[in-house]
């Protein structure tokens, strides 16, 4: 059963690894590389961001917060997008690993969303003079944070783990409409938050000495997601084996 590989990392290639044992072997092989790449990229990004990149003309040294804030915000959206793909995979094609991927990703996405809000607040205070402002982008990111929390609460609210995964999948897909709102809110509404300067078509409106640490941190965070995802997926699969063993033991009395 071959599906053409799409830009998503879920549909095509993962079908070959629907077999849990095979997937585990792949995960175990990938793990040290992912962890190593994570450490390298983050170390390089931190070095460039804290020591090499120049201070900003207007914002001075506070611009260095950007090197954690922006990658964290990107990851908050990226992880959710992955969860949405996994949820669709679970509900439409009943992909056996999809539910676990969504469940394992949620804490990572929640952490990045929290960091985006927290570092954003610390960046906003010297820049705008306030810890918080109810503009379109901040409000929708806060909503994203609550959707993540709701997802985790829902997935754990059922005795049957599969029911929890499927219910959370529906919730994730309903909340996906939040993503374009977050992305485009700074364009649609006159907000305090600055518009996009990296992902514009054409040259990014940001100097390369600042772009490199930004991209390296983003890459490092992505490897972090993969690394932690592998850890949590393996833990989930162990948990279901332990549950199955408990059931067997209970049946034998």
């Amino acid at each position: 059963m071959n599906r053409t590989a799409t830009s998503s990392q879920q549909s095509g290639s993962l079908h070959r690894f629907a077999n849990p044992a095979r997937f585990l072997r792949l995960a175990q092989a990938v793990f040290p590389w992912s962890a190593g790449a994570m450490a390298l990229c983050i170390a390089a990004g931190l070095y460039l961001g804290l020591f090499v990149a120049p201070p900003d003309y207007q914002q001075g040294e506070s611009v260095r917060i950007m090197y954690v804030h922006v990658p964290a915000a990107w990851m908050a959206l990226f992880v959710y997008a992955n969860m949405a793909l996994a949820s669709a995979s679970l509900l439409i094609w009943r992909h056996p690993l999809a539910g676990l991927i969504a469940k394992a990703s949620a804490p990572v996405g929640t952490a990045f969303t929290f960091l985006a809000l927290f570092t954003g607040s610390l960046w906003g205070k010297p820049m705008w003079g306030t810890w918080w402002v109810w503009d379109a982008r901040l409000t929708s990111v806060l909503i994203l944070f609550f959707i993540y929390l709701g997802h985790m609460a829902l997935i754990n609210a059922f005795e049957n783990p599969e029911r929890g995964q499927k219910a959370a999948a529906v919730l994730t897909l309903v909340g996906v409409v939040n993503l374009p709102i977050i992305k485009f809110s700074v364009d649609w509404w006159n907000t305090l938050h600055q518009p996009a300067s990296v992902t514009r078509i054409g040259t990014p409106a940001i100097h390369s000495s600042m772009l490199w640490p930004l991209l390296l941190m983003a890459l490092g965070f992505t490897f972090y997601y993969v690394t932690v995802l592998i850890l949590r997926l393996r833990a989930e699969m162990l948990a279901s084996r332990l549950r199955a063993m408990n059931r067997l033991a209970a049946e034998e009395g």
Partner: protein
Amino acid sequence: MEGGISEFFAMGGYAAFVWPSYAVSGLVLAGLFFVSWRELTRRQALLDRLQAAAPHRRRKPKDPERT
């Protein structure tokens, strides 16, 4: 890099904003990593204990490709 170490740590007066940002980010991400790691090793240890205690049962082989 100009100036001394103290100037670096002062971050042009923004130290109170920059360093907590990095510190909290590091703590949260490292914390999540270690919690996930610990959960995995705990469950693995539990599984090993249970398999050592009980005779290993043969389970029906799972279908290799399940869609």
